[in-house]
């Protein structure tokens, strides 16, 4: 075989699979570093450009999009503007900030009313693997004078 013997290692002796594995590991490490760089760039590019706090109009518009046909009877905005909770019949409509967007779920009103309150924050279980709970800054929760 050409090249075999004095100068080159015979092909059989080459640990080829190890080289492939090493290449894959290097590729993975470089990709991970690239991911870190891109995330850092995204953080830099979006600094100071977060979503504005929710106000009544924005919250109602979002609720209308997420729950078309549901009539909002009362609306509570989170003190930090990062969510809202509305009563619509026997349901509580919940908006909670996700990055610069929102996730929306509805739960029975009783559950929302009985939710745990701690340090002015309400912890509402949503019973959904994809959205396990909403945490809303509602210091005066639960509301008084509302029939369940």
């Amino acid at each position: 075989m050409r090249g075999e013997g004095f100068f080159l290692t015979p092909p059989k002796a080459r640990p080829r699979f190890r080289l492939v594995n090493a290449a894959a590991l290097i590729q993975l490490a470089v990709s991970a570093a690239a991911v870190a760089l891109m995330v850092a760039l995204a953080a830099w590019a979006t600094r100071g450009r977060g979503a504005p706090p929710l106000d009544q109009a924005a919250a109602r518009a979002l609720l209308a999009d997420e729950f078309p046909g549901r009539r909002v009877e009362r609306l509570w905005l989170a003190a930090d503007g990062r969510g809202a909770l509305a009563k619509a019949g026997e349901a509580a409509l919940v908006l909670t900030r996700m990055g610069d967007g929102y996730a929306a779920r509805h739960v029975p009103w009783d559950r929302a009313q009985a939710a745990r309150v701690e340090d002015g924050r309400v912890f509402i279980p949503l019973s959904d693997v994809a959205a396990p709970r909403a945490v809303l800054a509602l210091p005066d929760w639960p509301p008084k004078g509302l029939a369940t």
Partner: protein
Amino acid sequence: MKAAIDPVTLATPFFIATVILEIVLARFGALKAHYETKDTAISLTMGLVSSVAGLLTAGASFAAAVWIYQHRIFTIPMTAVWAWVLVFLLEDLTYYWFHRLSHERRFWWAAHVNHHSSQHYNLSTALRQTWTGGVAGTWLLWLPLSLIGFPPAMVAIQKGVSLVYQYWIHTEAIRRLPRPIEAVFNTPSHHRVHHARNPRYLDRNYAGILIVWDRMFGTFQPELDEEACRYGLVHNLGTFNILRVAFHEWIGMAQDIVRQPRHVLGWLFGPPGWTPDGSRDTSARLKAEWAARQAAPEREAA
């Protein structure tokens, strides 16, 4: 196991460079793109881990293709131009049906939902790939190509080409391309519709490279200027926990089966949102309700 030429690996530096370019140019207002830090981190990590997860099943799927190829009907040469044209068309048709199945049946949606779970639409969203696609077994759909007689490496290369093609269409930076291109190819505009959660846009534009399949099979929907795309899922994620992002639909499906095992077939193979009592939203219902709301003001006006 991969083909000798892997277009996705070759394109990875291009992916990285263009994501960086999109972020920087958007930062200075030179093009339209919205990034959010945690969302970007999830998308890119999903992509990174999916490349590892894919290796776990790639060997089995490639071995299956090789075995099928040994029982092939024809022998199609990898060196013929006509063979590449044919594999391009047939692979793209296969992709259409794979993609449609992945949206319309929950078992496969559980694997594909990850790709749609971002509320953003940018180049990083393209890299938000499944970890469980191999386990879901959708690679079986490509086996008939090997049975026909396309060498497995040829099919693998064409699948890679399709994936690379679909990368650049995940952007808001390109509004519309010239009409002949929009008529034939999947474009950023068509694919924005596919990622939108507006009822009008749900379950539309499944194409990989050629949009003609959607036109042929009745699933085409053009992007409308009067209805901006809202991206994400019908019920958007309420967490950035990457394990929940990756597995939430599988877990939800398992919980449903444990709760009501006699409906196991419906839970597995019904459309996403299917329940025995109709208490959740399916795409069909959301579209019907939306159409009814659209028709209501018209009836009142008449």
